[in-house]
């Protein structure tokens, strides 16, 4: 996999002016692990490997939904 700093330098050449991340801190997280995930995503993008945007796959049951729908505030 490409080196992160090398990839970043290429992005600057392509006009990158800012980048921000959502990172879930926790056990096992490291700079290298984060960089690897970003590079994997970028490799997929470069290769045209995309998926559909996520959609809802679960719903509340009708009895729960009835309670939610009937909630009232003044």
């Amino acid at each position, binding site marked *: 996999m490409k080196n992160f700093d090398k990839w970043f330098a290429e992005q600057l050449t392509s006009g990158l002016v800012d*980048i*921000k991340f959502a*990172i879930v801190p*926790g056990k096992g997280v490291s700079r290298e*692990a984060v960089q690897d995930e970003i590079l994997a995503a970028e490799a*997929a993008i470069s290769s045209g490997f995309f998926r559909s945007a996520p959609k809802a796959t679960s719903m*509340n049951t009708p009895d729960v939904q009835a309670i*939610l729908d009937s909630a009232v505030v003044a």
Partner: protein
Amino acid sequence: MAPQGAILLFMTQNHTEEIERHYSRWIHDTAINIFNIVSEQTGLPKAPTLGSQIRPIPVYEDEASSLLKCVGARRPTEILWPAVPDDKYVPAYFKRYGEKKDSRNEVVVIAENYCHARFFAAKELMHCLMDDDGFVATNTAALANQLIDELSAGNANLDIKPQTMVDQIAYVGALVYLIPNDWIPLLKQMVADLEKAGPGMTEHAYRHVATMIRVPELLLRIRLTQ
């Protein structure tokens, strides 16, 4: 510490707090303004009084208006969904290319869960709204690595740089957009009604409400109890 050093530290801390206050206020107001636009164009109530009036606030969904459409009206913006299997540490990230009027945004979302994808997309879209003249921009490899290190450390490191602070403030914008202030009384009432409804409802009250408006359950808990 030498007096000059103490004064410098004091000034730096005050300056950082001032920047944080500025961006916090700004992101809060911006999120509310965008929600108001989406509300008017989609028929979602600004201050709902009945549960049946509410549904998920559009982030990227194909509706009359959404956060993505509002952001895109200001500057070309697209969300990319790369087919990668792992969203262990990086559920999403944001990139901006080009200067000022000619710039465009890319938001990359890796999270696969619908509620998480909505939330992280919203968080990254908040960055698309920021015009900062480069002050908080992450525009060198060294800064990017520093940002990764500071975000990976969670809140343990209080001496964070402006770029990291802005990244964290974007979470606030996403929360305010997805769970507007004026929805909170009704959402709290929904939780209370479920908790009164007995076994099967009480234990998962927050989850049921989170499912209804499609936000992560933990974030709904934080928003309703903060």
